[in-house]
């Protein structure tokens, strides 16, 4: 039995599309990446699973219980970090966290302080005085302090500096090692690749692909740019090269396959600049079906 089981879930906001016929499942202990561009339906899916909104059709189960009828029960074991964090502005951080903790059975004071220390959170400041990144840290502590069994992370790293991002990833990995299941939504491919075992790709409200992270990586494209005097696209006539463009003495193309083949070609040219980078998610999407 999966921790999350989504079957033909559809949500329309009036006539506006939320998600259409989404089905997937997540097993216990997995870190499932949910990637897609903005507006693809990632947050809609999470909000449906948290019963903040109700499905137009289809159904979803969390811990084997239907989300529309067993919301409060399910949420006892859930931690949620929304993409944008909003709390009661007038409250102090510590009061907000204690308030949140009071809704969950058991004493969570120790964990609250542990987490605050890791995230370097100042407990005595007022929510309204916090920067975006600091609010996000409050969100992380609030989402984790009751030791939930399932974590929903919706674009969790936005607003965190790289150091905090690393601490946060370590924290999530440690939680996962304890057996916590993680549902990780993001539009940044890199962080999904770092953390997740399996990914679902959502595009325009529909699941485009669900695959193992390794499979996705093998299919991965590189974006190559070569700047050199008199360089011509013909120099990179290789299998796996697509989408070749030339501008201002720079040749750009996508490459899929053994990167050494490209490097050998480049080493034969007197170049002024070379870039090899990860394509953006949009670019992956564009090439995913070719």
């Amino acid at each position, binding site marked *: 039995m999966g921790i999350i089981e989504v079957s033909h879930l559809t949500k329309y906001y009036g006539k506006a599309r939320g998600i259409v016929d989404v089905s997937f499942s997540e097993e216990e202990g997995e870190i499932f990446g949910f990637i897609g561009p903005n507006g693809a339906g990632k947050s809609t899916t999470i909000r449906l699973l*948290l019963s903040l*909104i109700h499905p137009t059709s289809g159904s979803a189960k969390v811990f084997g219980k239907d989300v529309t009828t067993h919301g409060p029960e399910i949420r*006892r074991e859930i931690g949620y970090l929304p993409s944008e964090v*909003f709390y009661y*502005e*007038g409250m102090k951080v510590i009061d907000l966290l204690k*308030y949140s903790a009071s*809704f*969950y059975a058991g004493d969570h004071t120790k964990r609250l302080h542990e987490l605050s220390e890791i995230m370097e959170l100042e407990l005595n400041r007022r929510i309204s005085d916090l920067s975006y990144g600091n609010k996000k840290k409050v969100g992380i502590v609030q989402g984790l302090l009751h030791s939930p069994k399932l974590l929903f992370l919706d674009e969790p790293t936005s607003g965190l500096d790289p150091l905090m991002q690393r601490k946060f990833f370590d924290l999530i990995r440690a939680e996962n090692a304890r057996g916590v299941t993680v549902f990780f939504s993001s539009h940044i491919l890199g962080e999904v690749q770092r953390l997740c075992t399996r990914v679902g790709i959502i595009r325009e409200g529909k699941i485009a692909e669900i695959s193992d992270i390794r499979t996705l990586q093998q299919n991965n494209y590189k974006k190559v740019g070569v700047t050199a005097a008199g360089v011509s696209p013909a120099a990179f006539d290789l299998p796996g090269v697509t989408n070749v463009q030339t501008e201002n003495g720079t040749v750009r193309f996508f490459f899929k396959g053994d990167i050494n083949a490209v490097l050998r070609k480049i080493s034969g040219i007197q170049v002024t600049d070379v870039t090899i980078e990860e394509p953006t998610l949009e670019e992956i999407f564009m090439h995913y079906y070719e």
Partner: protein
Amino acid sequence: MNIFLRELRANLKSLLIWSAIIILLIIMAVAKYSAFAGDPEMLKMLDSMPPALLDALSMRAFNLTTISGFYGVMFIYFALMAAIAAAMWGSDIISKEERDKTVEFSLVLPISRSRVITAKALAALVNSILFVLVTWGVSLLAVRSYKPDQAFYNFLALEIQAMFVIELIFLAIGLLLGCAMKQYKRSGSTAVAIILTTYFMSIMAVMNEKLDFLKYLTPFKYFDAGELFRSGQLNGAYLALSAAIIVICVAGSYWIYNKRDLYI
């Protein structure tokens, strides 16, 4: 319980502001009364005013030179204040979570939406009760120097009861608007618009006999001060009507809020 206490704390400032307003209103009103008190000249002047105007301000039913009469005329203003305060509390306490976008925190906590409404509605109710008690207490203090008789105290108690029922009606209407309105930012202003509309209906109902039926539509007319003064009790039929409105609004609030999507 936590939600209830948090809401009480969060609404304390609003309660203090509304209390200050009503205290000021009472003090100003009673200070004005000192000009009317026991002055026969004033009565003559009032008699020369057009009856329709006096009706509109419900001044004909009362002898303004007595403290009871004066409080009878003032009642509608206290009731208006109470209605506006209660409607704002009722609508705001639900809709502010969506306005401030805190709903993604507060409704992901492991509690049902019904429990959220119950806790919040009770907090708003406590505010409403305190507001009525402040009005009562300050009135008692303010009129002390006029040494009113027992009849006045009885009438005041009756007025306060009526004010409380009106408050409950608009608290329930506000709650319903807060739970139901998609344009949650407008739930407060819609509530106030309803109050002002029903207030003017209560005036129209007196001024024009053809519009007499309006009295069933406006809670301000359910407990008309002149009627309270004459009968010495709250009208049972209107009490039942008030209870029906309150029950329907509250039940509707639970039903709609449980069913609908939260606006995020």
